[in-house]
């Protein structure tokens, strides 16, 4: 049981347990002692499903990373490859198997494809002449991985790129499959709303898949009342803006992968009395970040400016708690104090960690560069001077600031202006290519294709209308005690979350005009529930699925909505990937192969 998954209204442990069960079954099919050879990319997501302890229970004695050449020695009967269905990986496996065969080690080989088997890969193995050596070839369908009590992700890095650049809808198919799995475990979802082309595709696929199972009725009481499918390209602006929640900033600056963040170690050294200058650790400090940590759960979704107050209050509480030892007089009281000690020590170390992290972040948020960047972002979001070349961007290019920073700003200007004028676009393009190199011409082309950086057409700029109607910019934002989701960007309310908010009350019919301005169709579908199971009026749960990526700030905003009113809608968030502006733009960049000079 993973502690952090049981906090929400929906017990995502059920999903996790189902995944673990499948894994156990596969391991048992390969009887005897085993060694697992891992595709490195999978170790992260798998870590969220099963720890080594589970594997050990099923006779997994050794674990290796997949590398070309020959396998390290291991005294096991079975070798199992846990890999993605990629051709280059097949070649490495073939190499491994052949070298093993040469050594005449008489071992059994198996492959577990994650998430699906692939004919192309098996064909490749056959061409290499090793297909026959494998006894069990199976697939482990890992679509939606639970990251937290209310968060699921497919961790599909290329989903946005595939859907919007390459017109490849494979990831949408996987999303639909993942949703079918969810429905099998948590009941049919009676209402489906969606906005966007990809949303429409996913909904169609779901309905078609449901028809294939016509006959068998799902008798589980539905946990989810509504499914909301949203295309990322309905709201291109939100991921471009710098997130200002605590978790959002950690992701922006250091990156959070699979629930872990790697931080510079200097501030995490424990100062022990009497010890001189110890050697500074060079390894970055790896911290796990999820809601199992009480303090983190409290501050993660707050605006960063409100975090300091919480930390200082907590510090006072913890000091007071430790001071209690002076008050403990009787043996009984001392015993009670001692029993609470571990919890208090954990709280103190947690506080120390987060105070260090907050200090690191504060160094950056108080810097001039951060302030200037944020100012320009907010100017664009409020529609100031979006049709001219921006001098701050010009200066940054001249100083050769990181390219992704430039691209985020330029794309933001384009989105907020519904496209840039020819002169402005050409100027930016020219400056960027001349300063960073002509090889980025393809990246710029990709950004244009994705709609992030485009030429202004004769159509009117709709953004101001959308902004006013949906109240995307709130001047009177209160960062300490927010009353609106706009606190996550200190003034800007994420468009996607606003749409979700309006769907519940007063409904999308009231914003028909605005919806038409946003790309893609919007729709509503209903799925038949077996008789006897009825919809709830209160305490509704909505599963909101972002097709193309979701940011931590949007997650924070949705959590804010969940706890805003008693008996209101609670949100469970799913996505193809957890993104931030940097990783998102990076996925759209095309890399050049290094020349062999």
């Amino acid at each position: 049981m993973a502690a952090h998954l049981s906090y929400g209204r929906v017990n995502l442990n059920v999903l996790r347990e189902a995944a673990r069960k499948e894994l156990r079954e596969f391991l048992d099919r390969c009887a005897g002692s085993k060694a697992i050879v891992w595709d490195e990319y999978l170790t992260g997501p798998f870590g969220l499903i099963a720890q080594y302890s589970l594997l050990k229970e099923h006779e997994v004695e050794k674990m290796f990373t997949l590398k070309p050449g020959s396998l390290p020695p291991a005294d096991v009967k079975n070798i199992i490859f846990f890999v993605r269905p990629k051709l280059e990986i097949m070649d490495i496996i073939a190499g491994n198997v052949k070298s093993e065969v040469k050594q005449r080690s008489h071992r059994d080989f198996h492959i577990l494809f994650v998430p699906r088997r692939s004919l192309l890969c098996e064909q490749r193995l056959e061409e290499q002449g090793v297909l026959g050596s494998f006894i069990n070839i199976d697939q482990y369908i890992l679509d939606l991985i639970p990251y937290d009590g209310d968060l699921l992700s497919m961790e599909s890095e290329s989903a946005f790129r595939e859907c919007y650049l390459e017109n490849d809808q494979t990831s949408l198919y996987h999303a639909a499959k993942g949703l079918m799995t969810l429905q099998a475990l948590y009941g049919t979802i009676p209402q489906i709303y969606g906005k966007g082309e990809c949303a429409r595709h996913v909904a169609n696929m779901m309905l078609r898949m449901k028809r294939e199972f016509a006959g068998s009725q799902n008798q589980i009481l539905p946990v989810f009342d509504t499914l909301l499918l949203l295309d990322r390209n309905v709201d291109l602006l939100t991921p471009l803006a710098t997130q200002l929640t605590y978790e959002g900033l950690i992701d922006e600056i250091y990156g959070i992968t699979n629930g872990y963040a790697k931080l510079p170690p200097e501030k995490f050294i424990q100062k022990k009395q009497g010890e001189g200058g110890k050697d500074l650790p060079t390894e970055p400090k790896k911290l796990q970040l999820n809601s199992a940590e009480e303090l983190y759960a409290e501050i993660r979704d707050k605006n960063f400016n409100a975090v300091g107050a919480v930390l200082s209050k907590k510090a006072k509480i913890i000091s007071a708690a430790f001071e209690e030892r002076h008050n403990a007089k009787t043996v009984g009281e001392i015993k009670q104090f001692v029993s609470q000690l571990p919890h208090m020590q954990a709280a103190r170390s947690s506080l120390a960690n987060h105070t260090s992290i907050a200090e690191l972040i504060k160094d950056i948020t108080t810097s001039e560069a951060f302030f200037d960047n944020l100012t320009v972002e907010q100017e664009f979001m409020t529609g100031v001077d979006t049709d001219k070349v921006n001098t701050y961007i010009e200066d940054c290019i001249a100083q050769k600031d990181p390219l992704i920073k430039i691209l985020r700003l330029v794309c933001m200007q384009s989105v907020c202006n519904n496209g840039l004028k020819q002169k402005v676009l050409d100027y930016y393009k020219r400056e960027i290519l001349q300063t960073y190199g002509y090889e980025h011409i393809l990246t710029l082309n990709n950004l244009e294709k994705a709609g992030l950086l485009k030429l202004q057409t004769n159509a009117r700029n709709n953004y101001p209308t959308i902004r006013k109607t949906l109240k995307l910019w709130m001047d009177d934002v209160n960062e300490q005690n927010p009353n609106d989701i706009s606190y996550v960007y200190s003034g800007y309310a994420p468009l996607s979350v606003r749409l979700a908010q309006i769907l519940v009350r007063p409904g999308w019919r009231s914003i028909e005009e605005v919806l038409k301005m946003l790309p893609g169709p919007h729709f509503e579908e209903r799925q038949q529930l077996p008789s006897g199971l009825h919809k709830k009026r209160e305490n509704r749960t909505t599963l909101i699925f972002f097709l193309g990526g979701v940011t931590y700030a949007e997650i924070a905003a949705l959590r804010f909505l969940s706890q805003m009113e008693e008996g209101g809608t609670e949100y469970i968030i799913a996505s193809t990937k957890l993104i931030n502006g940097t990783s998102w733009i990076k996925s759209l960049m095309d890399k050049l192969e290094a020349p062999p000079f």
Partner: protein
Amino acid sequence: MIRGKGDEEDYWNSSKFKAFTFDDDDEFSQLKESKKAVNSIQTLVDDDDDDDEDDVEKVGWNGEPVGSISLSIKETASRNRMSATDQELGFPKIETTMQNLSLSKQGSNYSLSSLFKGDYIHIYLCQYYCECVGEIPSRHFAPELRKPKSHFFLFFVMQTYTLEDFRALRDKMLLLDEAVQLHNGNVITAVKILFRELESRQVALRHFIHYLKEMEELKLLNELLKYAVFSLPFSAEDAGFVQDHYTLLERQIIIEKTGQVEVFKKNPRKAAILDMPIITTLYYSCFYHYGESEGTYSSPGSIKKTFKLSDKQYLLTALGARAKLKAWKDVDSLFVTKNWLGYTQKKAPIGFHKVVDILHKNNAPDTVIQEYICLVDDTDLKLNLAMKYKCHDIIINVSTDFGCFMCVCECAEVIKII
């Protein structure tokens, strides 16, 4: 050397590699156009001999720099001659193609990927070509190859879903091989044939790009942008950028060979100038080749002119470079202009406050910084800069001018006069 039309036939017939002819089969009249294009390129190709040996990328089968590609092609071509002669006119039979072009890496002595591995790969441009091809239907076959050296290869492998198409794919690949042999490693325009095919299968085009990435076996290649295919339908602006890139690479190669010895010794460079962006190239030029006349290829002036860089860009870059070298006189002369009265004055298209920042970053001495702070027009800005960089004289002067006694006191405290 321009060849007459009559020479073309001689060339075709006298070439060692006779295995493939375009003429005889009516079915392949569509190839005539490409043949024309191919032949017109032939004339330009003869410039080969004039060019420097250094410019040729020498790579071997496994990517290590060994002999020239053309040499390698000849070797393998002769090996494949056997199978080639057995073929009928037109597209060769499937069986042969399978042998030659088996996608497995094992035992493929003529796998196209190994042929081009180690070449300077510019996949992005090729991908870009892909994108363009999908969108624009008409082909322009007007090769304006500027300096087509030997190794330009751009070819596609198309993956479609029917078996017939798969065979056609093999056929086309063999066709490419033949073209390669014929031109001795020179420009392949047989690729244009593929473009035609791709035209009609735009959906497949997308899937194929995907498949290509998957396969990795046969990559999209383009060697040393010098050898671009201007016949490809680029959008107007992007074509300009691509053109600039070629010019830049050519220029960089030239610059690589020149240079003043003393400057290089004092400030050894960290990397070659090849493949660096244009602004970096300008910086390099201002650093190592400052003061050269505009006539030389490596002078900053010539670079500015050729690539039409703005005054602003030039100034910022030159300033940075000269400041780094602590050449304050040069920095000074960047700003001196004669106004219409004949007096010299200092002007800058960027604000002087930016100049001060750049100078400070390069550890300029206080006197120099002071000089430029004085040139800032805006008094508040001037004061701020002066305080930031601790130029007390200026603070005192400006403050007393405006009767700001407080500032003077603050400043005085700092330098402890009072």
